[in-house]
């Protein structure tokens, strides 16, 4: 990725100072946006996966509890 990042920068070596600063700023924002985008996508997917994992644990605990209750009342009667 660094190679492709440097190429437009190399082309700017011949441009006036202001234009270079603007272009560098634009490239940085562009790149930052990409990173944030990827982060957001992964965060959302992971968050949902975690929600599912927690629900799974809750369900297992509930099942255990109920099975114990069924066995207990089975033993009593």
């Amino acid at each position: 990725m660094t190679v492709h990042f440097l190429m437009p920068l190399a082309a700017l070596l011949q441009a006036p100072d202001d234009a270079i600063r603007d272009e560098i700023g634009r490239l940085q924002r562009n790149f930052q946006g990409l990173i944030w985008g990827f982060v957001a996508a992964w965060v959302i997917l992971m968050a949902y996966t975690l929600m599912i994992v927690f629900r799974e644990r809750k369900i297992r605990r509930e099942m255990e509890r109920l099975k114990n209750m069924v066995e207990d009342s089975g033993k009593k009667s």
Partner: protein
Amino acid sequence: MRQKVMIGMLALAAILLVRNLYVISVLPDEVNQGQIFRIIFFHVPAAVAAMTGSAVALIASVLFLVKKDFFYDSLAVAVTEVGLAFLAVNLVTGSIWARVIWGVWWAWDPRLTSALVCWVLYAGYLILRQALEEPTQRATFAAVYSIFAFTDVPIVYFSIRWWRTLHPQPVFFNKNGSFPADWSAALRLNLIALFLFYAVLTMIRLRQEQAQREIDYLRRTVHAM
């Protein structure tokens, strides 16, 4: 057996996604938009997966109404809920993309707006389910709503597209510049990876829904004793 299938799919999805991260970083830039265009590798597959999910939800809803088998109801919930997560990915990446390219967090672009309406529709589906307690009624009404929602989706898409193209506002529509040719393969692989991930999450959620129904049944039995 099913456990192994799921783990296999999950591993495959993970491998594909990681490999793609590498591939994505090495691909040449897109001319007009620069680096940010790479976001399309998540943005588009997430939307496609979510739309496929909603089609599955429709079929599951119809099958439930016809066959009264609760498996289809569980499938509908699972697919819709996972679809919400994937649509959220689509919306958030789309918003970030819009911010970088157009300078605004939200532009009333036809595809993004349709995605937002779909998100709201399917969130409504989940809210309806929460409001109904009796399982058969919940499944039936949710299925009816799902059928209405799915019928609405294409109409929403076309109407918003007409709105945006026939009544141009001072906003922008051409999000896609040229699509570089060698990106297609990577895009397709990411699509497959996300589809696999979607399928795995759906299967787990489906099983949870069926387990929840068993819990409710056990609870009723225990209280009856």
